């Protein structure tokens, strides 16, 4: 049994082998693996005994269930109106400039993925972004550069 198989088996043991457990299991796999691979979906389907197509259909419905390979840190910058009004685009350019990736891409070292997200619920402290589950608000290009530098240092980069 490989690591993904045992991860999924454990998750199924924990949440139960029923359809209602599908989301928690998928979320936990994404938490661990950064994304839900085709292989993981097959294993979930087998373990929970639901059709693989249903796993795929359900997974792709949810923006936070990544089905494409993603970096260790997924940056989701809010693109809804309040954040746009408060300078989201400048922040986005600063991130792209720093990581040398465009929206939807992952850095070659597989550290960072850059995505946009719909309203994150921080309109009063716009612009906002998530890095994995961590929230960052009232962003400016300077602030976001500092934040990303911290993440890079944390990983012994640069």
């Amino acid at each position, binding site marked *: 049994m490989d690591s993904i198989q045992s991860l999924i088996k454990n998750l199924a043991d924990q949440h139960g082998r029923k*359809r209602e457990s599908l989301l928690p299991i998928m*979320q936990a796999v994404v938490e661990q693996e950064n994304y839900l691979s085709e292989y993981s979906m097959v294993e979930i389907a087998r373990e929970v005994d639901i059709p693989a197509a249903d796993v795929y259909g359900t997974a792709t419905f*949810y923006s*936070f269930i990544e089905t494409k390979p993603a970096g260790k840190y997924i940056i989701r910058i809010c693109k809804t109106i*309040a954040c*746009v009004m408060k300078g989201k685009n400048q922040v986005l350019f600063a991130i792209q400039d720093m990581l040398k990736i465009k929206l939807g891409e992952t850095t070659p070292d597989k550290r960072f993925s850059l995505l946009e997200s*719909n*309203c994150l619920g921080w*309109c009063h402290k716009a612009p906002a972004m998530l890095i994995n589950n961590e929230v960052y608000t009232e962003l400016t290009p300077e602030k976001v550069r500092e934040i990303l530098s911290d993440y890079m240092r944390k990983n012994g980069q640069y």
Partner: protein
Amino acid sequence: MANSHQLKRVDFIFRNENDWEKVLSSTIKKKPNELINELISSELKGRGGAGFPTGLKWKYTSEEESDEKYIICNADEGEPGTFKDREILSKVPYKVLTAMAVCGYVTGATKGFIYLRGEYKFLEAELNKEIAEFEYYCNEINFDFKISIFMGSGAYICGEETALMESMEGRRGEPRNKPPFPTQVGYMGKPTVINNVETLVHTYTIFKYGAKKFYDLGVQYSRGTKLFSVSGDTPKPGIYELELGMSLQDFVYEFGDGDTKAVQVGGASGFLVPRKKFKDAAIGFKGKLTGISLPTGGSMMLFNSSRSMFNVLDNYLEFFREESCGQCTPCRVGCQQLLLGIKAVKRGDKPALYLDKLMRLTETMQLTAKCGLGQSVANSFSSIVENFREEMIY
């Protein structure tokens, strides 16, 4: 305006009173019927946006015969411009838990869920601690009610109650046909009360202070207080608890930056009110106030004269195009048409008259979409296009 009044700040929701044990134990000594009547007489309406009378929801569920019933706290707050539920859950979570338990007592449910949006994952750990403490107390007083958190995963539509239940059942969050309503056939096919976070906190206020205290606030048909999430061009963005029924004029006076051109009330699915209509608009539930009344989930976004209303509408429509579940035709295709349509008019590829065709399309969406999402796209579209037509064209 007779029914309107000066802006009145209130402090019920975030008043930090460490007495939830007492509120819980004393409330569940009363008869379920008494509590339902109390709730009905308070005239509390759902604070998630739809405004259904909360007391009736509880009553209908309590009347259903079933071996199992559920209480769901809807914390899938995703309406652009809304962030009150997050604030409640991080500041006074025990009030929400208590209210859920009381609702369980009233309706005969012993299991509750909090459906927490994925964007608020960072709240989960703390909330779980609160739940553990809460359940410990319930255990001590021999009260059987369990609560668990169900995490969402980034889908606005899951805030729609039946989509939320589909999601909890491990499926795509596609809204169901209604009837049957969740009070009859809800989560796992069982009678279910599903209330917004804020609604539950108001019931806490009502059970603690009595219905009268709540009823005496606000205006006819719009009783009590409401949390408002204030953002946009304002010097003081944030969360405010205000009495319902205020005029938008007063609101802008308080929160505007002196140059407020329009206010979007109720988020992307709400209405845009231009400056010239501020004094006629009152914030409360539908139709009964003088002037325009605006049903609301509490989002108030202010725009000053530097903002292009075309960009605002464009942003909303892109939001809906992506967040529509995609199952029903008017919403799936309608949102795409509206977005492409206003761009085409702006570019000059379609004549200005095409806006009228799009307005008629939003009427159809309102009449025929399967759920509230598709039905309410018309609100922002028509209010923005009607009031800022020239900005759409030039």
